[in-house]
């Protein structure tokens, strides 16, 4: 069932983003920033965790999942390191994705030529 919910929840998050894009003067970059912040907020109040438990990748693959990961990482780090965890937890949890994005991004930009 997780597969079905991943499709539906992931699709619906994208629908909300599409509506924000079409009905406001936001650019896609604005929408991405808005959604990562919303992910952090909904992660903070404990709602996004339920969505992740329920829809799996449908909640973690869209960008709000990134905001949620940052908040969860902070929560875990504060437990072990105290208040310093507020600064280290977010990037620690997201390190794999960020480093992969930089490395793969750099490699792709160097290897491929843009189509005219």
């Amino acid at each position, binding site marked *: 069932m997780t*597969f079905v919910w*991943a*499709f539906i*929840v*992931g*699709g*619906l*998050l*994208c629908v909300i*983003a*599409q509506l924000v*894009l*079409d009905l406001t003067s936001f650019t*896609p*970059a604005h*929408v*991405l*920033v808005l*959604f*990562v*912040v919303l*992910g*952090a*907020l909904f*992660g903070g109040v404990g709602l996004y965790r339920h969505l992740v438990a329920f829809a*799996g*990748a*449908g909640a*973690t*693959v*869209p960008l709000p999942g*990134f905001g949620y990961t*940052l*908040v969860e*990482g*902070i*929560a875990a780090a*504060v437990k072990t390191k105290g*208040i310093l*965890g*507020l*600064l280290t*937890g*977010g*990037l620690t949890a997201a390190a794999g*994705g*960020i480093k*992969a*994005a*930089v490395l*793969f*991004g*750099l*490699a*792709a*930009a*160097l290897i*491929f030529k*843009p*189509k005219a």
Partner: protein
Amino acid sequence: MHQEDSDQAKAYQQLVKKTQPKKPILKNVVWAFLYGGMICLVGQCIQTAFMATGMTSQAATSPTTVVLIGVGALLTGLGWYDQITKRGGMGATLPITGFANAMVAPAMEFRREGLVMGVGAKLFTVAGPVLVYGLSAAFVVGLVRYLVTGVA
């Protein structure tokens, strides 16, 4: 004079509104749902494959993200992700593959401006704002939770 200006401005705005192509919102929304859903379904398949090696679903999230970012970067390099975004709209942009696309596409395009200010800087055209506001929002949320509950 001012009245005339504002009248002209209003008339211009109306003209813009009339001649601007109408956004096919319903069509955009349907495609966003299908593309976004499909990418998340692929993500769930990858995550399930990692879980089959004994990872918990939480532990499998990070390597799944890494694979999807790699796929997004590769498809962008090949010029295919542009085609996906053209139809999928936010359904292709909101998933993490779209985030990879938003990094690679400007970096490729501005490569002629050099490896530092071209590729290096343009990789963060969209990723930069997302990281700045994502990290800041997460910090504020964590701080508030820390102050309210004593743990974040």
